[in-house]
């Protein structure tokens, strides 16, 4: 980068006493002074501008009636609800696309990453083309493209029916669903509790086995807690699990689960785009496991499944998990592109609020607070997972 050679500069010797501390203090005072000065300048401008426009700062507007329509929401909403509730509905919409997107992108990305390593030339080439094409085109362009395709789909009457009970039309994707009311949720909640209890019991059993070497089977607990207990509860409460099939009535569909075109386009765009990055992470993770590990596992005579589960995957995951965290964060942040196609996530709702009330600072502060919280949540979970699988050096 530089052509000249470093030459020690001739310099006067100051007394050593406190010199480093003094320069350090000088720089800190300077930097903090500049930052405080700039912030104070901006703040005073803002206060003057806001009072000139008769906007009162503060979050009091959250209690007022929102009046904006939200067409597609997970939570019950009507325009007479408050801005606060509109925001919460927006957060739920963001989480709905982010959580499902993360799960689907991980599955698709892992499959494509593995395909890239396949011995089948055609499969690995196809996976490479997929990764290269999707990574090198802006996500927003892909999103608009998917949305245009969604709108070009036939009307409800002429909907595509790839599988019985599934309809794809310009109204979105309609799937058969099991309606979940409170009784069903109670049963599912029991199953989750049972699973948690099983994990704890299994950990305790393994600890016992470590102590005396006697194997203790864990599967009876699994069957009992995760399957039998919720099943018994379901029978006792008389909960019904009938599948609701969507049907065409007039110009629209009745029943089933509807994914609106905006949501569906956003989900497809986020999942395909992020899966291309995840595929590369998975590929490099698997390639990072030295061949000697495969050979050693083979030499031990391990079964394929055991070899993958116990030898290869734990080592690959150490390389995979940290970059995966940042992909999950990216997917969540990218879900804010929803505003471009009119899916009402938290950014889109904050933007409408901002236009209706003029509360720019508060609306943007809320967006930042929401995303910082989600980011911290994902980082926290992934760091916990990472520390669990990290190499324990003995």
């Amino acid at each position, binding site marked *: *980068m*530089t052509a*000249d050679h*470093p030459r*020690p*500069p001739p*310099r006067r010797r100051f007394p050593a006493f406190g010199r480093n501390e003094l320069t*350090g203090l000088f*720089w*800190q005072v300077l*930097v*903090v002074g500049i*930052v405080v000065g700039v912030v104070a300048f901006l703040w005073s*401008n*803002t206060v*003057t501008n*806001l009072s*000139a426009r008769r906007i009162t700062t503060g979050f009091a507007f959250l209690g007022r009636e929102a009046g904006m329509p939200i067409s597609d929401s997970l939570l019950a909403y009507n325009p007479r609800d408050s801005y606060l509730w509109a925001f919460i509905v927006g957060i739920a919409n963001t989480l709905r696309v982010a959580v499902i997107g993360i799960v689907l992108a991980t599955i698709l990305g892992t499959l494509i990453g*593995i395909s890239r*390593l*396949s*011995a*089948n*030339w*055609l*499969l690995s080439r*196809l996976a490479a083309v997929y990764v*290269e*094409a999707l*990574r*090198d*085109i*802006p*996500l*927003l*362009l892909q999103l*608009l*493209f998917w949305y*245009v395709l969604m709108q*070009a789909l036939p009307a409800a009457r002429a909907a595509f029916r790839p599988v019985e009970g599934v309809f794809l039309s310009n109204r979105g994707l309609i799937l058969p669903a099991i309606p979940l009311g409170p009784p069903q949720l109670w049963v599912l909640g029991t199953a989750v509790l049972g699973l948690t209890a099983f994990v704890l019991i299994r950990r305790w059993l393994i600890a016992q086995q470590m102590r005396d070497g006697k194997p203790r089977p864990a599967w009876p607990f699994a069957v009992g807690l995760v399957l039998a207990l919720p099943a018994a509860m379901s029978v006792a409460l008389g909960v019904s699990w009938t599948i609701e099939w969507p049907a065409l009535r007039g110009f629209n569909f009745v029943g089933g689960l509807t994914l609106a075109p905006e949501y569906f386009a956003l989900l497809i765009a986020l999942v395909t785009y992020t899966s291309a990055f995840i595929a590369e992470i998975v590929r490099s993770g698997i390639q990072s496991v030295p*061949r000697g590990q495969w*050979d050693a596992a*083979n030499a031990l005579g391990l079964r394929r499944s055991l070899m*993958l589960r116990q030898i*290869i995957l734990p080592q690959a995951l150490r390389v995979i998990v940290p970059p995966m965290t940042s992909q999950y964060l990216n997917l969540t*942040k*990218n879900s*804010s*592109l929803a*505003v*471009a196609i009119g899916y009402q996530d938290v*950014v889109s709702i*904050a933007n409408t609020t901002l236009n209706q009330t003029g509360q*720019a600072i508060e609306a*943007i502060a809320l*967006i*930042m607070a929401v*995303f*910082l919280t989600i*980011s911290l949540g994902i980082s926290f979970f992934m760091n916990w997972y990472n520390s669990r699988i990290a190499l324990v050096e003995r």
Partner: protein
Amino acid sequence: MTAITDIPDAPRAARRPQIGNPVLRWLRTNLFSSIPNGILSVALLAVLSKGIFSFVQWGVANAVWLTPANNSSACKAVRGVGACWAIIPEKYRFILFGTYPFDEQWRPALSVVLFIALFYLSTRRAFWRRELVYLWIGTLALISVLMWGGVLGLSFVSQDRWGGLPVTLILATFGLACGFPLGILVALGRRSKLPAVRSLSVLYVELIRGVPLVSLLFMASVMFPLFMPSGFNIDKLLRAQIAIILFAGAYLAEIIRGGLQAVPSGQYEAADALGLSYWRKHRLIVLPQAIRHVIPPLVNTFIAFFKDTSLVLIIGIFDLLTTAKTAIIDPAWQQFSVEVYIFVAAIYFVFCFAMSRYSRSLEATSGR
């Protein structure tokens, strides 16, 4: 999971005796090494050929390539069965250069050429020296003169008439050029021993990286006028540019910090032993090594910025994607958005693919 189990087998398959027709042998190793593999290959071939066939039918065989000016009736006749590429010759000047005065469009075109030349020269190892900085400053100044005009007999063109590819390139390149020094300062700040400087740097990086770029752009377009004294107003493009620079600075700082961590501590100690001051130590010893370490991730970040500039569509700035989206508002051509999106996607792809190839070649030769 069957695919994973193929990995250790691959070299064994390659070590089979080399007999017979080389084409058959290649097919056998790469497509039909086992029965499941063979079935997979046949299925993939079937799907692929069907896909390619229908794309060729839509995009080539049934496509309309040219129509009389401003007349889309030929396209409407093949709607659904054939592509309407005629929209590209009809609209390409608007998509590439937006509402820039038609007779002056050689100026943005020349700017694009200058940008590409600048990128090309920056990738040559022979140019990796101090003069490159002057080359960047000179070229960017020349591009500003070309775009704005007002001197040397060029007519003045105000910023709100700029559009298309030059705007995308300006946002990405100026974002990198100004974000880079900012990133270096913040990276040094984050590794500094001074607690106030360090915590301010951490706060800046984490705040910017924690929120989506969309919200920063909203902030630039809505809140910036609130921050400034009344009567003082700057252009929308410049506001978006500032948001992108701040965004770029935070991401570049993290990459440069990685490079700083990779410089062995012996280098720092040696510089201290020579009696170099803090700034000379970093300018002469540490940063040159740190930046060399992180050139491949820097290129990757630049690819990401280049793609992310398309987000300015949301605040209504006429970059390449926005001009494309605007071009298809025209009622006569409204139904042919897919063709326009494919055209624009191809432009983005060419730029990003070239850069990612370059980054990969750097990774392959790094350490030499």
